[in-house]
């Protein structure tokens, strides 16, 4: 009742929605980079949305299923092959025991998620199954997956042949700048990311304020689960001011002393002392984390109310998807 890692990827880990309630102790939330993709993969196999999944970046691990299951992939397209045959993203797949899953090349995106029906048997730490590699706790032994790791399934499924199920989740809305006002899917150019203005945005010079909203920045190669570095026209402050550390969030865009920007990601520290220019809204975060190095991004400001509304639309769609998938799965195996 398990899956085995027969070749390790570079940074594959077990993640869920994240660990909350301990940030006052310096214990950061972790969790999936692309929370929507994690939830979509879970919905497709009939799981609760917060079930732990395997998060992969490229090169990803090669896996062997030692027991049958129903699995789904979502997020980045790494050209997945099951027993040598292409399998689609965002579609449930029945997998026979002995099958081999590998990922051959990057077609798009940065983070891919693997969910299995019933989830993986992982012991939680502080209420979450997410991996905290710094604390060496949570997830699978508090570390990235390596060769020989065996992850058991919570549930057993009987099946002898591999089969792709004939339905697919429509994921476009999670990766498009959907607008609440115009009900338009592509209200903004696709590289624009909406933000709530940060408390120290006014520390910038007039020119830098304009640049922040007009000049695109590029995602640097120095980007990981802690943060994406953004390079472009260096930002200038009207005067050097000291800032005391304060709580920060996934999506907070900080101004570094050299004028570069960094967008904080899932493994961000709980507090930060750099000026906060903006906070990228949750509804645009899946699209952002899936950007690859050298891709260019730009920012625009929205109100907190609009950010809330956009998040709610996604949450509602995820719940609808979850219900629809449960219904479909029951049809196939009552």
């Amino acid at each position, binding site marked *: 009742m398990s899956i085995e890692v027969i070749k390790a990827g570079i940074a594959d880990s077990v993640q869920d929605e994240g660990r909350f309630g301990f*940030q*006052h102790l310096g214990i950061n939330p972790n969790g999936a980079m692309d929370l929507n993709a994690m939830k979509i993969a879970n919905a497709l196999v009939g799981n609760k949305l917060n079930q732990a999944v395997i998060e992969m970046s490229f090169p990803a691990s090669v896996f062997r299923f030692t027991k049958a299951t129903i699995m789904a992939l979502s997020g980045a397209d790494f050209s997945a092959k099951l027993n040598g045959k292409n399998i689609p993203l965002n579609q449930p797949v029945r997998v026979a025991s002995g099958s081999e899953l590998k990922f051959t090349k990057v077609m798009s995106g940065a983070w891919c998620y693997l969910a299995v029906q019933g989830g993986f048997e992982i012991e939680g730490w502080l209420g979450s199954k997410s991996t905290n590699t710094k604390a060496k706790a949570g997830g699978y032994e508090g570390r990235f997956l390596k060769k020989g790791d065996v992850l058991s399934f919570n549930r057993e499924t009987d099946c002898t042949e591999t089969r792709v199920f004939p339905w697919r989740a429509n994921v476009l809305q999670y990766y498009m700048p959907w607008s609440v006002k115009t009900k338009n899917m592509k209200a903004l150019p696709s590289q624009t990311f909406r933000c709530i203005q940060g408390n120290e945005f006014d520390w910038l010079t007039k020119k830098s304020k304009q640049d922040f909203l007009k000049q695109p920045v590029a995602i640097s190669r120095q980007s990981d689960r802690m943060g994406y570095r953004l390079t472009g026209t260096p930002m200038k402050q009207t005067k050097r001011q000291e800032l005391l550390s304060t709580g920060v969030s996934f999506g907070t865009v900080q101004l570094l002393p050299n004028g570069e920007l960094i967008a904080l990601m899932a493994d961000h*520290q709980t507090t930060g002392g750099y000026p906060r220019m903006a906070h990228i809204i949750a509804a645009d975060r899946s699209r952002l984390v899936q950007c690859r190095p050298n891709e260019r991004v730009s920012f625009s400001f929205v109100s907190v109310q609009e950010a809330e509304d956009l998040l709610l639309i996604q949450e509602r769609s995820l719940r609808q998807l979850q219900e629809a998938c449960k219904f479909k799965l029951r049809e196939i195996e009552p």
Partner: protein
Amino acid sequence: MKALSIYPASENALTVCLGDKMDAAINDRVFILFQYLQRHPNPFWKDLIPAYCTLTIVYDVDSIRKHHPSACAWLRNEVERALYECEENETLPVRKLHIPVCYDSEFGLDLKSLAKTNKLSVDQVIELHTQQTYRVYMLGFLPGFAYMGIVNNKISAPRLSAPRKHVPAGSVGIAGNQTGIYPLDSPGGWNIIGRTPLQLFTPMISVNTDHGSDKNSEGTPVLLQPGDEVTFFPITKEAFDSFDVQNFNLLST
């Protein structure tokens, strides 16, 4: 209690700013609000992050919006009410902790250079570091990393210009007017002056539950908590090597 400002730190986080400097009186107010909110828990907030002069509340937008038209506006109201009510509230007694530190040259990698730059002897640095009672202003950077202050000006020192790639767990450091202890092996730029045999972060101490867990100070994997008062006392290398962590009473009397 009046806030200087209350501002969003994301669509699911609100920061209450109660001052603008490292100051015990300001941090006291942060702590009073933090304690008040901890004792009046609300299912809608997911995290409370106290810092030097701010408290950030991370909340669940989806759940609040089932009952209120704006999560942010609702939370702002709640915070304003808490600010008003928390002053009436009795504060819990502050924990006083007594932490052994070995200032041996094997551990105090920057002790000599810090003494030299500040025109002091190594013994004077140790004396000044152990003389003071420090307050845990906040935790951050690493699980269990406590920012403590305020360090005597005579032994304050800027961060190293090139951070070390590896600072061992238990290392006691100084950065500016702050002192802290590395709970884990980690890269770091603080001036290391000694090491404690105590374990500041013990991941497996806590009981796992499926829905959040014990948020009180007991049963958490972290030794130092926001609001604690800490003093250091010097121990020899021999005492460090044979230190009995199990039977050590951390709470000073």
